[in-house]
């Protein structure tokens, strides 16, 4: 176990380091000049030169990278060119919203996806199964931003039940939760469609196995067979997909936050890349990568908890 943890941690650090170098290189190859973006196309050359000097844009790329990595080791991720505040402040003020959105999104995805998948499997070949498969096929095909717009039109503009977007802050928890209902729904509907299909086929596969027949022959109720015997044995592929979907939900927030104008990290990524805000992009990409790597790690742990036969994987 310790060897496993150590190997995982080293792998994690190597991944992050490689990603940071790639982001730095890519951002430097991309055409653009933050000094023109900030001061506008009608600015004078000497004002732009003064700003470039102030931002340290004239240093060679390797020197800027070394500066950055030395700062990052000590917890200083640099200062945003555009907002002129430390990148860590920028991220911390937006992190709670994106984390809540991602957590709600994942929770709703898992609940809805597994529930629908199990219902479909239990009604295999009947109308319920067909209906769920048809709807989930639609869910996979529909882009999240389009679905978001439809939800807004119905629930915010027509019915006026929920706000069309924006985030009032956690000071008012009720209003905050209300404003997250539509974004969470939009995130979860699309992702749960995939999960429902995987759950269904995984459950169907287990249903054909001998022990299920035995359980049925012993007179257990259908619900008990499903809950006690089928689902636990069908979980490994489901957990794999859930792990991948966490990444999907986190990146999905980029689109959702733009459509619902939520002040989260997704919108910040979008803006920073367009603005060539190097250090902000750098920190955000590293953060997103860390979330994905951590999720993969948790998925590996979950495998062992579900199926003790897989313990060998950890050593």
């Amino acid at each position: 176990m310790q060897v496993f943890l150590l190997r995982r941690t080293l792998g994690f650090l190597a991944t992050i380091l490689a990603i940071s170098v790639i982001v730095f290189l890519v951002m430097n190859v991309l055409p653009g000049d933050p000094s023109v973006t900030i001061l506008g196309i009608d600015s004078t050359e000497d004002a732009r030169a003064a700003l470039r000097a102030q931002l340290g844009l004239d240093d060679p790329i390797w020197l800027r990278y070394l500066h950055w990595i030395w700062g990052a080791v000590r917890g200083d991720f640099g200062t945003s060119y555009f907002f002129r505040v430390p990148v860590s402040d920028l991220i911390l003020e937006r992190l709670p919203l994106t984390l809540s959105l991602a957590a709600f999104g994942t929770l709703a995805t898992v609940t809805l996806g597994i529930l629908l998948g199990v219902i479909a499997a239990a009604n295999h070949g009947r109308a319920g199964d067909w209906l769920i498969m048809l709807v989930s096929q639609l869910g996979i095909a529909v882009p999240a931003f389009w679905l978001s717009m439809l939800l807004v039109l119905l629930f915010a503009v027509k019915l006026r039940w929920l706000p069309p977007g924006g985030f009032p802050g956690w000071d008012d928890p009720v209003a905050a939760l209300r404003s997250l209902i539509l974004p969470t729904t939009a995130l979860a509907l699309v992702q749960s469609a995939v999960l429902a299909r995987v759950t269904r086929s995984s459950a169907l596969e287990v249903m054909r196995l001998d022990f299920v027949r035995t359980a049925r022959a012993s007179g257990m109720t259908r619900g008990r067979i499903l809950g006690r015997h089928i689902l636990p044995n069908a979980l490994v592929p489901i957990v794999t997909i859930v792990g991948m979907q966490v990444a999907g939900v986190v990146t999905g927030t980029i689109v959702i936050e733009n459509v619902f104008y939520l002040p989260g990290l997704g919108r910040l990524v979008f803006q920073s890349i367009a603005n060539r805000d190097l250090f902000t992009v750098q920190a955000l990409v590293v953060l997103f990568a860390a979330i994905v790597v951590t999720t993969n790690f948790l998925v590996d742990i979950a495998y062992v908890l579900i199926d003790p036969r897989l313990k060998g994987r950890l050593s």
Partner: protein
Amino acid sequence: MTMFRTTVLTALLTSAALASPALAAGTLRIGTQQEPTVLDPTSDATASISGMLAHNVYEALTTVDESGAVQPNLAKSWTISDDGLTYTFSLVEGAQFHDGTGFDAEDVKFSFDRAMAEDSVNPTKKIFEPIESVTVIDPLTVEMKLKRKDAFFLFNIAQGAASIVAPESAADDVTHPVGTGPFAFAGWTRGDRLTLEKFAGYRDADSVSLDKVEFRFISDPAAATAALMAEELDAFPGFPAPELLEQFEMDPRFKVVVGSTEGEVILALNNGKPPFNDLNARRGVSYAIDRNEIIEGAMYGRAVPIGSFYPPHGPAYVDLTGMYPHDTAKAKELFTESGLEGGEVTLRVPPFPYATRSAEIVQAELARAGVTVKVENVEWGFWIDEVYKKQNYDMTIIAHTSPNDLSNFARGPKYFYGYQSDAFDNLWDEIKTEADPAKRHELEKQAQTYLAENAVHAFLFQLPKLGVYRDGVDGFWASSPVLFQPLAGVSIQ
């Protein structure tokens, strides 16, 4: 069953209506597409910074009214010496900054010296370029000496980049703006909203009707529409999508105001290299395009065509749209003469809806005249590098939003136009030093005609200002002669 459903729905709707927060009296919620990066217009050109803060939080020596005329502001009056080189400003009494410090001539000197300094990062440094020195005569009098006459001086120092800031607070203005204006900064959540509150210590506080102003940042046009329709916003003065205006016009809850901005949209031609260093090729483009078709297709008819580089609402405007009537045969003839017939040119388009939509129509129109246009939609960073800095393009579409920007054509061959003309340079020198407005307007007319005759670019249309307001919101400018919008005169019922 149906009865039951209807009852439940009605009950839900009523409770939802009750649950939505009631409008606080005197609070105005304004939607804006672009969010500010910092809150200091003297260090960043992002248009929304001036748009929200100039002449609301910050003030300047002068201001500009809706017609574009200069009005007194922190300077209540001024005298200009006979040679036009010395300006003496008398300052208002009783103005104070939002942090409680008083305003006097030292603050003016500080603000100007800061903007003129060697290491200044002021985005519009050319405003200060003519200034020789700023001297404090007494606490309420400032004298400025100019190196040369500048006809636009009083207009220029009204802009956000010339805001008067205090030495005590200037360094923190990027996140916590402090000015002397009618509204004080009250809060900012990046990516979400910026809040201003009426400043009780404002010298003319009784004339301000709003208690609170909330700017909400919504970049997506569909989201902006939904927010207005759901009555989450009271005003969207710079509405981004002309194609979505009709539903507001048909809805009695809203009024739609279409005005003008200072933004001339041009099909810019690279005068610095073939094929458009040739006058015939440039004139060919002007004949080939059909402005009405472009405005219809790209702006849903909501824009005014221009024939040169000057806004139609300006005092010196001369209508030159008839100089090159749409004439494909004539265009073909000129393209043949210049050897461009059957050739290919590149149109690099920045990511703005007015540009990307116009580009497709321009492409079709030039194809009819025998020239193949390769449209490349590029990202803003790429445009800045390749088009603006390296002049690596044949054609592009861009709006120039600064006032009095005829000066662009006197910026020399290194500016991205690649254009240089001694005749125009002389004309511009005369314009910028002519103090008499009537004479200056005459010269500006000559300049417009000169640019049209030389078909430096193909001039398309004036960027409109599309405003959507809830019924009961009054006082917004229909047109924008400057980037800012004073809210002191705005009211809501």
